[in-house]
């Protein structure tokens, strides 16, 4: 603790005691003063943190950027080509492009959940990063991993509640943005 911090704390204690021991307008004046000191304390804390981060970022371990990029590109690409393969398959069974695409998405979702259950998806994700998060299989993984993890807490408060940990935000903001897009399209 620096002398400056000690001095601030001493003054804070003093002002706080005066605030607690006074009434009405005087009390409000002391409260004002207390808030000033608290802001100064916060500012000191933030400044120290900023300096430390600047200093410690020099010794930071480098993110293996090129390796991460290659993995993300490769795995993401492969998952999308697999999806494309299913689209071709469903089209051959006579589905229209749009329906084939939707069916393919559902198959990928099921594959994602299955691999999560087998305990494989997190091993892929460890290397592939965004490559296995961004495709719809990653959406499926985030849902099924949360559900799986909280199985031991029961099917109501465990699986039932936690399954929406990531699905909830995705659905919420997907719906919210799509409504705005729909309305904007209607108005303009």
């Amino acid at each position, binding site marked *: 603790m620096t002398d400056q911090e000690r001095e601030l704390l001493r003054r804070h204690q003093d002002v706080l005691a005066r605030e607690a021991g006074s009434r009405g307008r005087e009390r409000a004046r002391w409260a004002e003063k207390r808030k000033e000191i608290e802001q100064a304390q916060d500012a000191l804390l933030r400044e120290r943190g900023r300096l430390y981060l600047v200093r410690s970022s020099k010794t930071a371990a480098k993110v293996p950027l090129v390796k*991460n990029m290659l993995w993300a590109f490769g795995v993401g690409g492969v998952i999308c*080509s697999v999806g494309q393969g299913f*689209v071709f398959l469903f089209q051959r069974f006579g589905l229209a492009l749009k329906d084939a695409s939707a069916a393919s998405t559902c198959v990928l979702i099921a594959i994602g959940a299955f691999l999560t259950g087998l305990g494989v998806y997190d091993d892929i994700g460890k290397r592939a990063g*965004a490559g296995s998060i961004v495709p719809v299989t990653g959406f499926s993984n985030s849902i099924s991993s949360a559900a799986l993890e909280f*199985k031991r807490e029961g099917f109501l408060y465990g699986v039932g509640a936690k399954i929406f940990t990531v699905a909830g935000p995705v659905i919420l903001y997907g*719906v919210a943005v799509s409504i705005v897009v729909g309305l904007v399209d*209607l108005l303009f």
Partner: protein
Amino acid sequence: MMLLKAFLLGGLICLAAQLCMDLTPFQVTPAHVLVGMVALGAVLSGLGLYQPLLDWGGSGASVPLSGFGHVMAQGAIEGAREDGLMGALRGGLTAGAAGISAALLTGFCASVFFKPKG
């Protein structure tokens, strides 16, 4: 050929997301990425920029979660054109319903049939 295009476009979208994760000072979690991609896809779709990607790259654009955002946005736009406000409210979720239901159902099944391995 389409397979290659899907690979390239899908890979590029994932690559862009990876760069967002690695080159920003914030801790970007999967939830951030997923929500970001859905929102981005919906916005691009509203601006009419996502359909060309789909036409070129097929699954390379529909499999990333931005494709899910696109589907929801198109649903909302169609709904709004048919039924106005009520359609806009209904359209997005209706279009995304299959994906959401499939993910919830398979996620639930995974939790029933498997144990977390750590």
